[in-house]
């Protein structure tokens, strides 16, 4: 109860430190979700519709990725980007640096894109295969056919994006490792909760938890509304 009251107080007080954390949480996960959808939806559609020799291998890799412990991905990204790592040694602005939001986005993209791709693939494979042929007979190019099939599978495709979002908005280990939980720079809701709990500020931690829950609820409802939207002219 104390958590709920404090959550409301925090929200109503417009605490700038809190809003910075919320903003960064959504910026990092939003950008990561954008890129994981950009990779995952076409990849899932391709795997669902095309038969090629290495398909089983790619799908096995994808399934592994779907269940991969996020903290291990965090570790890999950490080693990749650290000073002594293969990418960390390269000069240049395009390489994300450790303990920056960019590094967190990279880790979250890697965590979530297999989920988006895997669920999209399943959704696409659920579309009646003969429909594809009939769409082509109406004069669709391969791209138009793929798009039409994704539209048929849109409920599942939105679920894939929601699953991808769920996997990163609530994730702690990887963002802690590669972000470092630096106040005002890389502190997000989950890492803030960990910190406040450790400090014994249970009420603040619960307040942050409630805010996280509420915000991800709002995001999911929004995506579900998109799902129900009719795509007719």
């Amino acid at each position, binding site marked *: 109860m104390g958590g709920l009251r404090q959550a409301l107080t925090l929200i109503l007080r417009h605490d700038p430190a809190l809003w910075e954390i919320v903003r960064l949480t959504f910026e990092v996960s939003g950008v990561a979700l954008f890129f994981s959808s950009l990779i995952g939806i076409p990849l899932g559609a391709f795997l669902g519709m095309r038969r090629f020799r290495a398909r089983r291998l790619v799908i096995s890799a994808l399934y592994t990725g779907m269940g991969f412990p996020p903290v291990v991905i965090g570790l890999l990204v950490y080693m990749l980007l650290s000073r002594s790592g293969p990418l960390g040694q390269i000069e240049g602005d395009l390489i994300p640096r450790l303990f920056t939001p960019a590094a967190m986005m990279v880790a979250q993209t890697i965590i979530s894109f297999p989920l988006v791709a895997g669920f999209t693939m399943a959704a696409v494979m659920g579309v009646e295969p003969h429909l594809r*042929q*009939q769409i082509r*007979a*109406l004069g669709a*190019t391969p791209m138009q056919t793929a798009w039409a099939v994704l539209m048929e599978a849109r409920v599942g495709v939105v679920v894939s994006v929601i699953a991808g979002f769920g996997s990163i908005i609530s994730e702690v280990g990887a963002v802690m490792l590669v972000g470092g939980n630096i106040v005002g720079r890389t502190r997000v809701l989950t890492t803030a909760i960990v910190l406040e709990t450790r400090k014994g500020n249970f009420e603040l931690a619960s307040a942050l938890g409630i805010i996280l829950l509420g915000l991800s609820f709002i995001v999911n409802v929004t995506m579900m509304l998109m799902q129900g939207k009719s795509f007719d002219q």
Partner: protein
Amino acid sequence: MSQPVYRLKSVTKRYDLREVLRIDHLEVSAGEILALVGPSGSGKSTCLRLLNFLEAPTSGIICFEGCDYGSNGSVPLDVRRRVTTVFQRPLLLNRSVQGNVAYGLRLRRAPDQQERVDEALSRVGLLALARQKGATLSGGEAQRVALARAMALDTDVLLLDEPTANLDPYNVGVIEEIIRELNRERATTMVLVTHNIFQARRLADRVGLLLDGELVEVADVERFFEDPADPRTLAFARGEMVY
């Protein structure tokens, strides 16, 4: 008859080494209605898939309006768009009836889409259902929507795979009349697959018999039914064929 739209030369189709279609020679003339009859599994639908360039033949050449397409060459989009099919088991997109009929027109960025959709739907008697969801239609309604969405495209060639299989006698009559009208008004070339030899007789200029993937005989409709060259055709036309 004018110049052929299709000319098939030594065309075969195999699935997993099993040959399901073998047509040594077949011509389809512009503006004609060619009926393909034959028992179940004889390769009729397979033949239509090849004619619509949905699958390539395993060997042989399909010559369409003077251009040869073989087992590996891809068929240009504008050529593919001159042919369409009404499938044996039509599947509609998960959108409204008019959305389904408009789909092929939207792909082509065709002009006057709404008018063409309305025209096609009123021909098949489904204008009232324009806003209904495709998934909620009855089998016969779905089949008529499938005819409407093909008809709206006004292609040079229309391939019809059992277009009246799910329909009541009244609607069979309606659809057959539409087929005749399209053929007459727009000179649409048609290949009609049917189990119903009476329908073949009512609609077709020529009839071909497929047996076990082999094109046994193609002849003018009168000839096919009255005086066929092959005894198997006679047996099939009389309904004596055992299969």
